[in-house]
Each structure stands twice: as structure tokens, then as C-alpha cells.
């Protein structure tokens, strides 16, 4: 294995190669002080290089006899895992149906649409719904809400939380006959307690927060959803170097996907729309460009159809493309057909 594929800084790599250390095995035959002298770097730096290199070699050696690649899972195991995986309901049964039961954990879902279509409303609804207790078919988790636009209205959250609480109580009354032990020990205020809010004012802050999330979530394992409202805002201004933007976004997307996978949580990214010129006409598409559109596992587009709001599954590896109507009511996101009063419990 060669030094050029080690995850170390470019200058260290260049120094290593020009000093003649091109393969991993050449590094292990000398001590760290030799390397420090040859490369004219501090001993600590040399130790760090050796640590990275030995980590790499360790993974090469430890060939688990059963698996071909360390840490890999077979599709059979994954299928069994996935069946136990929770989903977050959107409170609109039609939308849940086309999503295959709700927003799924372990995946990154992007939701985009024109201004006023209800992206933030859906974001808040998800932040509330993720806390529905397990007895009621929810995930009983916490939500992280990263607000870049300043559109997070706490009064509105309380309103949606109260409606969700009422629905649960109604459901509780309905269940009471056969399930006496089931207690609803949550108050609408508790919903607010469990939403962790980050306000982000520039794209550097946004990247910093995303980098910090891994550490934060490893300390707060009950976080089940990360919502970024919106991923776009800061990246649509103050950017001259579009190639840099693509790289930053690509790196951020990979980090978010890693989070989703590692901590079994749902990542929901809200996105704005833009016009794109293709084949002689202007079309509405989600912002941030073509490269970005590959970064999400699922993509949901919200749009107006006459006077009704519709959601369309634009991209998903597991469910087929489909559209469903939904409504934004005083109580949050609901089914539009019946304007139904009760949140659908799974």
C-alpha cells in the first residue's frame, strides 16, 4: 500500500514522498524520530503520521475470516434490520403512504418547494412527531432543528405540539378500554423541551454545526431527526466560486449521510427552488444544482396543483414515484381530503 492514499495533509504527504518513504512498509522500519528528522517536522507530527499508517495497516491485517470486507453487512441482515426501523409520520396519511410509512431513519430526505408551500411547517411537524411515545407508534426521540433562515416560530411549534397532544389524548381515550396501563405522561411544553435548536448565520457556521453534530449526537443518543431549514439559504449568496460551493456541499452531504447511518436517525433537508433553462424553456427545479441533487437518498417536491398542495416523490431507491395531496391547517400538516381532525397513528 502506498503513502499517497493515506489520509494525511498534502504537505506531509509531499514531504514523505520526497524523502523516499513511498510505501507503508518503509514507514514501519524506522522510528518516529528518524521520520521527524528526515522530513524536518516535529516529533509529534511524525508520531501522528505513524499512528494513521498503523491504523491503516491494522485494518489490512485483521481479516475477519467470514467477511470479505470488514464492517460490511449482507443484504439479508440489512433487510431484517430495516423491518425494525422506525419511521416518522408526517401526520398526513396520504403522504405517509407514498413515502412507505413516513420519513425513514438512516436516510437523508430532501424536501423542496416554492415559498409558502409549507416546508417549514412540515419541518416543525416532523420535529414534533418524532417525539410521539413508543406506545403510540412513535419513535420517542428528540429533534435537532438547524435554522438558517430564522423562520422557526416557537408559538407555531407550541400550537402544533398542542394539536398533536390532543390527538394523542383522543387516541388514548379510544385505547383506554383495552389498554389501562398506557399513560400519557407528556405535556405540550415537553415537546418544546425536546427540540434542540441551532441558529446559523453564515455558511461557515453551517459547516461548523454539521461537523459538530457527530460529537453532539454521540452524547445525545436519543436524537432521532436532524432538520436543516433550509440547507440552501447561505449557499445561495456570497458565492463567487461555484466549484468551491459544489465541493463544500458534497462534503457536507457525505457527513450528513454518515450521521444518518451511524446513529440510525432521519436527516431532513429543506431546499428552495430555482429556475433552470433546459431545452429552450425555463423550468422550476430545486436549488443548488445538479451535483447536489445526487446527494440525497430521497427527494420530495412540494407544489401547488390548483388550490391544493401536493407532494411528489421525485427520487427514492425503495418506493416508486407518486404524488399525494396534503394540507397545512392551524393544527399542522394534515390530510387534505377529509380535513381530518385526528393524526394517523401507526
Amino acid at each position, binding site marked *: *500500500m502506498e503513502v*499517497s492514499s493515506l*489520509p494525511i495533509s498534502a504537505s506531509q504527504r509531499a514531504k514523505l514522498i520526497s524523502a523516499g518513504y513511498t510505501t507503508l512498509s518503509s514507514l514501519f522500519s524506522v522510528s518516529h524520530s528518524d521520520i521527524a528528522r528526515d522530513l524536518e517536522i516535529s516529533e509529534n507530527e511524525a508520531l501522528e503520521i505513524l499512528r494513521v499508517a498503523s491504523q491503516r495497516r491494522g485494518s*489490512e491485517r485483521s481479516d475477519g475470516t467470514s467477511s470479505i470486507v470488514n464492517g460490511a453487512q*449482507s443484504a439479508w441482515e440489512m433487510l431484517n434490520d430495516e423491518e425494525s426501523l422506525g419511521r416518522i409520520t408526517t401526520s398526513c396519511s396520504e403522504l405517509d403512504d407514498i413515502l412507505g410509512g413516513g420519513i425513514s431513519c438512516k436516510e437523508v430526505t430532501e424536501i423542496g418547494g416554492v415559498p409558502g408551500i409549507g416546508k417549514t411547517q412540515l419541518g416543525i411537524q416532523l420535529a414534533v412527531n418524532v417525539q410521539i411515545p413508543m406506545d403510540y407508534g412513535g419513535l420517542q426521540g428528540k429533534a435537532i432543528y438547524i435554522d438558517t433562515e430564522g423562520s422557526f416560530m416557537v408559538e407555531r411549534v407550541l400550537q402544533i405540539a398542542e394539536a398533536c397532544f390532543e390527538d394523542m389524548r383522543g387516541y388514548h381515550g379510544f385505547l383506554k378500554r383495552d389498554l389501562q396501563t398506557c399513560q400519557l405522561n407528556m405535556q405540550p411544553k415537553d415537546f418544546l423541551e425536546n427540540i434542540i435548536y441551532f441558529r446559523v448565520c453564515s455558511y461557515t457556521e453551517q459547516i461548523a454545526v454539521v461537523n459538530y453534530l457527530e460529537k453532539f449526537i454521540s452524547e445525545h443518543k436519543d436524537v432521532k431527526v436532524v432538520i436543516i431549514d433550509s440547507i440552501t439559504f447561505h449557499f445561495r449568496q456570497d458565492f463567487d466560486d461555484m*466549484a*468551491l460551493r459544489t*465541493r463544500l456541499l458534497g462534503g457536507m452531504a457525505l457527513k450528513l449521510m454518515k450521521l444518518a447511518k451511524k446513529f440510525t436517525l432521519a436527516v431532513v433537508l429543506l431546499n428552495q427552488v430555482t429556475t433552470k433553462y433546459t431545452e429552450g424553456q425555463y423550468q422550476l427545479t430545486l436549488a443548488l444544482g445538479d*451535483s447536489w441533487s*445526487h446527494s440525497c437518498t430521497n427527494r420530495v417536491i412540494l407544489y401547488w396543483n390548483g388550490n391544493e398542495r401536493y407532494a411528489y416523490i421525485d427520487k427514492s431507491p425503495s418506493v416508486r414515484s407518486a404524488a399525494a395531496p396534503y394540507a397545512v391547517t392551524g393544527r399542522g400538516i394534515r390530510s387534505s381530503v377529509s380535513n381530518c381532525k385526528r393524526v394517523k397513528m401507526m
Partner: protein
Amino acid sequence: MTIEDFLLHDLYALLISTEQHHNFERLKEGITQVLTIINKKHQPWLSGQDLLDDALQNKHFLPTGCRSIDAFLHGGLREGYLTELVGTSSSGKTQICLQAASAVAKSWGKVVFLDSGNSFSPKRVAQIVNQTSDLSSYEVDEAFQQVMNNIVCLSVFDIFTLFEVIHQLKHNLRSQIDQHIRMLIIDSISSLITPILGGGGAHGHALMVSVGFLLKRLAHEHDISILVTNHMVAGERGTSKPALGVSWRSIPHVRLLLSRDHIRNISCMSILRHPHMATGDRVEFELQ
């Protein structure tokens, strides 16, 4: 005598020049030793007949799980080849990867799926496997589990992890002969490479080329069919172009462009590069 001498001068001239040296016997010995080491480094040569035999015996065509594509590609994805799928978002790249994985796992053997976009959906694979199943219901469960166990998936989120995995694969394939892998899928390779490209410095390019090189070598030596996906970015005047561009273009053996007509729900595959098919040939097919 320095390394530079070895690299720059004719070695036999070097040998003669040592004769003026006081301990030329030892130097001479050293030079011949170095020469034999260098000579041993080269790979054994093969004749065209050997290559043909190897190709006919060991390089099979693996199915993609879609009949019209298989017919179009004269049998499917060939072992020993690095095949690349290029297409815009939601053009069906991942679907073809999942279909090919299911088809190969079913009738050929092990598949390794490296996933950089959380897009591997076991549920979808189960759906495809069950759809094409023609066994009696008694056999189905066990056979189904076998097929699902044949697909091994790993999430990869940066290029260095990819290097690590490739090295591990190489190492494990050498030491364990029974673990034959038929297909390696990387969906998508472009999202791993694009973050390291640009920003000054040729290092990103070097990594990209060495990934391609390692993959091709792996494919050839172990008779694996490798399938990677590449996405599209906006090019000039509203057109789109592959994210991995000019310097990547020459690496894969086969490059296939996917596009999709959302209204008619028909997908189209056309050839951008192929060892023996004309560029621009195309086939239309339907994804289930």
C-alpha cells in the same frame, strides 16, 4: 554511486565505468544483483492466445437483470471490465445497480456493494429477487435468504475508506480462494471523488486516477465485473456533463449514458465508450 546513476545511465555502461574503481568486484556484484531484482519485477508476458483463453474461460458476461440491456450489451457486464453508468439524478442508475446485484447474487455468486449515498435499499432488492423468482414456494425462503446473503453492502463516505476497502478486498481475495466475488458495485464513485477535486493542487486528480487504476487491476486479476456510477453536473448553455470529466473519461472500459423520459416512463441507455461497440448505439427499456 547513487540511485540517480541507476536511473539515468545505461546499466551496462555503468558496469564498465566501475572498472576504474578500486573495489570494482563488489560494485559489479551489487549492480548485477540490482539488475536481477529489477528484472524479476516485471509481470510474466502473455501471448494473444493466452489472453484469448483467459477471456473465454474466466471473463464471463454477468446479467444486469434487464433483458433488453443484456441483449444490447451482448450478454451484460463483463468480468474484468470496469463499467461506468453516467446519468442525471433519478435517471435509474441505482435501480440498474440494484437489479444487477440481485441478478448476479441469484445465479452467479457474491456481490459487494459499496454505497456512498445511503441508496442501497434491501427492501427493493428483496422485491426484485422475489419478482423474478420462479421457484416453488417451498424452496423460496431458503433460496431467498441465500441470495440476500450473497449481497454484501458497506457504506463508504470518503475516498480514503474506499482505498482501505479496495486493499482489503485485494488482500482477502488473494488469501481466500473460495471467496470468489463476481461483482463489485460502487454507487456512486463520483460523490466520493468530487469533494477532493479542484481547490488547487493535483493531489485530487492523483487519487482519482489511482482509484481507477486499482479498480481495473482488481477487476482483471480476480475476474470481477466492476460497476460504478457517475453523476451529471451542469455544463455550458444548459447542457449537462459527467461530474468526473476529461481525466476520468479514459479510465473505464465501458461508459454507458442513462437518460429517462419521465412522461413515457421509458429509460434509454446509450454508449459513450466501449471496446467493440459503436459510440452512440442506444436501447430503450423499461424499469419495473
